[in-house]
């Protein structure tokens, strides 16, 4: 029975090390993704502001060569003509006049895509507003991955509940709140601002925008985790040197 208990404890410890190793590998991939996102945002910004593209020619990247934004056509736009399906009454009830199937109607909102002839046709301010979400996301992923990677590496060394890790969680909560809300705000307001300055503005719905505040909720969860972590640090300090 003693040998069985020892084996179970050893296996459990090994499982923990494997889990941490997998988490660390995943965070390195995330870090790499953040770096690539940063490089992509930098390349697009340089191209938009100067017309110079590095690494890849613009024609291979449709979002650079012909940038576009999704939009909604105004429901009262005089150019908007939706198909009007005719119905007819039969002994079996009302049916579609053309097909005889159950009657349906086609209504709005009508989604569209507004395309620009190239990123260089945007003004510098429009370029910055357009690309801000990409910058915020890349930096957020990079910094967040780095913070989590530092925690995972300390866990691999067996030092989980330490004050630096608790502080990293606090910084992570702040990052999620600030970067997450900023990203959502710019990503939802930015395209509408750019569309209102375009030639298609009078045909589009541009008078309202919505954003999600879920990053604030997620940040609260991480902040609560940081408080719990600090409790763990105190417990670890209390048991430090306990034989």
């Amino acid at each position: 029975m003693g040998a069985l208990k020892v084996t179970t404890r050893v296996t459990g410890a090994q499982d923990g090390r494997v889990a941490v190793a997998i988490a660390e590998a995943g965070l390195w991939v995330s870090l790499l993704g953040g770096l690539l996102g940063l490089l992509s945002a930098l390349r697009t910004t340089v191209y938009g502001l100067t017309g110079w593209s590095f690494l890849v020619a613009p024609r291979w990247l449709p979002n650079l060569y012909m940038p576009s934004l999704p939009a909604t056509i105004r429901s009262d736009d005089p150019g908007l003509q939706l198909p009007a399906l005719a119905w007819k009454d039969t002994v079996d009830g009302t049916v579609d006049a053309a097909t005889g199937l159950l009657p349906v109607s086609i209504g709005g909102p009508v989604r569209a895509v507004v395309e620009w002839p190239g990123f260089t046709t945007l003004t510098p301010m429009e370029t910055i507003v357009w690309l801000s979400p990409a910058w915020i996301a890349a930096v957020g992923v990079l910094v967040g991955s780095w913070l989590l990677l530092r925690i995972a590496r300390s866990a691999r060394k067996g030092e989980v509940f330490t004050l630096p890790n608790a502080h990293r969680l606090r910084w992570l909560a702040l990052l999620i709140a600030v970067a997450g809300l900023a990203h959502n705000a710019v990503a939802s307001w930015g395209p509408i601002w750019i569309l209102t300055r375009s030639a298609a503005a009078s045909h589009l719905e541009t008078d309202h925008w919505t954003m999600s505040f879920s990053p604030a909720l997620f940040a609260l969860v991480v902040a609560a985790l940081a408080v719990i972590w600090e409790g763990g640090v105190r417990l670890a300090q209390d048991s430090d040197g306990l034989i």
Partner: protein
Amino acid sequence: MSEDDVDLHQVTVHLDRILDTQGVTIVELARRTGITVANLSVLKNNRAKAIRFSTLTAICHALACQPGDLLSVTLGDG
């Protein structure tokens, strides 16, 4: 009692003296008690900050002694 006074009230572990008296090595004590050599070494060198009752019981049984033989408290000046 101030915080400085608490620091003067130190617990001393006399494990090294008892082991020398009985001619028992740390390795042998580890074998008898199931406590690791590393932890016993920490205890022997007075680097431990706390001791579990189960650990105290195991050592006292192994060395046929009482907690008072193993531990003493150095009181500060009154």
